[in-house]
């Protein structure tokens, strides 16, 4: 990595500043800003750094972390997945419907009911991802348009299945034990998020697929010429992204306690924002999973602090927008300064 050579005009270099600059260039601005914010909020925001609130932030950011990690993989292969929010809704509805309908027939087997319901939800997610991937890889359709279309199909299906009525009747253990449960004092969704971040970390850094994803996103033609099975890996990436969205949907459904067709219209854009804040390039080929997890955490911490400060939600949305623009601009500046010699 090249570090910007500062032009001191012959004066002695400011060592401390230079050290900070090297650190900044090495790890990016996000972790520094996150630590700064946490310190700031701990001092100035009442109820911020107390255990119930920390658990609250960790829980609510887990769903977005899982989604954003999937979104990152798709962004890295130079694509877009606008269907993740719709997949969350479809997973929510299908898994809850399957569990509720089996409940009457298999009263004494809650574990099996949960397993079949979870598999039904994951199956829906996998199917949507497969369609996205196949269209992008084999038809070379714009991922933007394909995932917009599949989002519409998934949302419509979820509404058709439910009639707009929340689906109740999931096994009590699924809602209380998993959705609202604490495992070793942490919300269950946090473990899911950590596991997925760990899996993708290994995938990115130690597997062929991780290298191929970077190659495909960096230069598709070059990857094809080099003999990378690009189509297979494109389909796999989109399928993985949708399956992650399904996992997020399953956790969210268990937490809410009912299957919902209108679960959250903002999740898709939030997942893209979290990834881009974390330095994932919209042009493809660049992204680190650990940063994306921090990006999602960053968004949720901001929202939580603003809620605790009881800031008007309309101002909150403006502020979040400013933060996103600022983060992307700063990140672009830092990468430029490291590229310049």
């Amino acid at each position, binding site marked *: 990595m090249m570090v910007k050579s500062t032009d001191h005009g012959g004066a002695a270099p400011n060592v401390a500043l230079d050290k900070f600059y090297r650190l900044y260039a090495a790890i990016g601005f996000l972790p520094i800003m996150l630590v700064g914010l946490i310190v700031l909020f701990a001092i100035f925001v*009442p*109820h911020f750094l*107390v255990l*119930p*609130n920390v658990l*609250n932030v960790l*829980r*609510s950011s887990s*769903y977005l972390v899982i989604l954003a990690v999937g979104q990152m993989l798709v962004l890295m292969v130079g694509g877009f997945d606008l269907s993740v929010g719709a997949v969350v809704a479809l997973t929510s509805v299908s898994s809850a419907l399957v569990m509720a309908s089996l409940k009457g027939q298999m009263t004494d087997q809650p574990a099996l009911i949960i397993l079949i319901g979870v598999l039904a939800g994951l199956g829906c997610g996998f199917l949507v991802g497969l369609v996205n991937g196949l269209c992008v890889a084999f038809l070379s359709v714009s991922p933007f348009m394909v995932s917009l279309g599949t989002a519409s199909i998934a949302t419509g299906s979820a*509404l058709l299945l439910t*009639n*707009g*009525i*929340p689906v*109740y009747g999931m096994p009590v253990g699924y*809602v209380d034990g998993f959705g*609202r449960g604490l495992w070793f004092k942490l919300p269950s969704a946090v473990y899911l998020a950590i596991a997925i971040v760990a899996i993708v970390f290994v995938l990115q850094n130690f597997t062929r697929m991780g290298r191929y994803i970077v190659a495909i996103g960096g230069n598709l033609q070059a990857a094809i010429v080099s003999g990378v099975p690009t189509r297979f890996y494109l389909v796999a990436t989109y399928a993985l992204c949708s399956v992650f969205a399904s996992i997020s949907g399953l956790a*969210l459904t268990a*937490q*809410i*306690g*009912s299957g*919902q*067709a*209108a*679960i*959250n*219209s*903002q*999740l898709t854009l939030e997942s893209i924002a979290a990834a881009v804040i974390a330095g994932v390039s919209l042009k493809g080929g660049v992204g680190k999973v650990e940063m994306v997890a921090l990006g999602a955490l960053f968004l949720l911490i901001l*929202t*939580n602090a603003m*809620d*605790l400060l*009881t800031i008007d*939600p*309309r101002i909150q949305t403006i502020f979040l927008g400013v933060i996103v623009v600022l983060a992307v601009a700063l990140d672009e500046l830092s990468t430029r300064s490291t590229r310049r010699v």
Partner: protein
Amino acid sequence: MRYAAPIVATAVAMTALALSGTANAADKWWPAKIYNLDSGSAKESEYSPLEKAAKPWNICVLFPHMKDTFWVAADYGVVEEARRMGVNMTLYEAGGYENLPKQLSQFDDCMAGNFDAIIVGPISEAGLDKKIKEGVAAGKAIISTVNPVSKSNVTSKMTVDFDTMGEQTGLYLMNYLKSKPAKVATFPGPAGSGWAEDFLKGFKKAVDGKSNVTMLGDKFGDSGVAVQLGLIQNALQAYPDMNVIWGCAPAAEAAVGAVAQAGRKDALIMSSYENQAMLDSLKKGEILGFATQYPVLQGRIAIDTAVRVLEKQPYVKSAKAIPDMISKDNMDKINLGLVLAPSDFKAVFSVKAAM
């Protein structure tokens, strides 16, 4: 068995009679109380429909969407009434409040089709004003329902005041609390939607300035359950002493799980309007209650009004629903068949009159 056939025939006939009797009894939704505004001020009056339509009129219905149980309830109202009166009904839904252009083109479809009357739940009055003028000029009966219309020259209109509904919930809360202290946070719905602000205004009219009530803050947000859940979880942290959660139906729904999780089951939960989840939660004792504007009734009255206009019968030009607060105390006294569709009802988009 010489007598078998007559016995069976008699039994079948009696069963059929009994069934039709129960069907008619269940169908009889009138007299229903509404506000009649034709004299210039709101007068409470009893509404009764015509018994049957004189001929199978063709009625076109336009709804903003069918994505929630509220509009499915309004659908149930128009469908059941069309069946009861013997008229043809075709319904188009625009797919969401963001789809005004779609509703406009659906209005054109109604105009181009062979329809005698158009019932519309307008996405926006300003947006539909020109279409309504065209419809009236073409001699169609144009009836607006549920959503407010103030200036457009519709043949007949029915709506409800959201602030009255909000006020109902506030008055009920004050009555329930007696003089017990309450710390209230509100979750009205999307900022800038108009309806969220109106419900809140009504609620505050009833509770603001009362010595035993502290208003902690108003948390606006998108009306998805997940967004509301986030707002409520953060509010539970920000206001450890919050003991009343008032808001839109998805907020109340999210609150049920959130207070259970936070070990705050003492917190009272109220919704400013109705949906299936609220009714289920009320039956389970998870919420204090919710307000209703009787969407099924409004659907039924819209069909009856259309037929009255077409058959030159007297009709109400401007009506308002009288909202009610539904709580566990009065649940068995209220005709829930005018509040929501039965839970197994699936949206119906067309009714063919039996010839």
